[in-house]
């Protein structure tokens, strides 16, 4: 395992966090998306599951997104008889997205992303100092 592999490992970590941010953005953007017919389900929150797998071409274990799974928790309900999605009693199911949870998740993704970034910068420094030995 050399330093270029290390750069690749950090890059994989960054791309996994990017996928996570994309899913968070999707959740926040759809935090008010209800169904269109009476009693229908609204937008269901998505979560990202990371996994640590062996990449044989790199000879190292890397991080990847194993799946983007739906959050199966119950939908909150809101009384809004005027909505096209309202059921017989006038209740509308709203998405199970909690914006505080999403924002906290976003911060964590950002922190992990920048940690990977600084490892990449350090590794680049190690590489260039090693190359400088030739001078």
């Amino acid at each position, binding site marked *: 395992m050399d330093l270029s592999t290390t750069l690749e490992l950090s890059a994989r970590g960054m791309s996994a966090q990017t996928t996570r941010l994309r899913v968070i953005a999707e959740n926040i953007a759809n935090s008010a998306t209800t169904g269109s017919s009476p009693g229908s389900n609204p937008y269901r929150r998505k979560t990202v599951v990371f996994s640590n797998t062996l990449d044989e071409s790199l000879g190292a274990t890397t991080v990847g997104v194993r799946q983007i799974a739906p959050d199966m928790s119950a939908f909150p309900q809101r009384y809004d008889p005027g909505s096209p999605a309202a059921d017989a009693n006038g209740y509308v199911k709203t998405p199970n997205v909690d914006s505080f949870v999403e924002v906290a998740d976003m911060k964590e993704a950002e922190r992990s992303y920048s940690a990977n970034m600084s490892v990449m910068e350090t590794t680049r420094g*190690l590489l260039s100092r090693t190359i400088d030995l030739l001078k």
Partner: protein
Amino acid sequence: MNSIAPDVFSVAEKRLDWIGQRQSVLAQNIANANTPGYAARDIKPFGDFLADQATQETDNSFVDTSAGSTAPQDRASTEITLNGNTVELDEQLEKVAATDTAHQLATDLYKKYVGMFRTVIGKN
């Protein structure tokens, strides 16, 4: 190892090799900072690494170059999140900084040593 001269270079080479492996393992830890069930890893201290190299020198075919995938778990890590992950970003980044400093020292010493040769042979 009859003379001192080749020893400095070989130790420097091993040191740089060890630093590279450690950096790889730390990069893996940080990349997996949010992976459920991932346990933080670290490689053996440099002293143990040197001792291992000395015993393996007789037969190089058994030298394990994939240290990252087989690195033992870091027992010093105590913080475990709800999903079973034991990576502490601050701790890992501190180790990255220590690795960076060690690398700086090793390369500087290497350069100084090469400089001594240059002085002797009269180049520069």
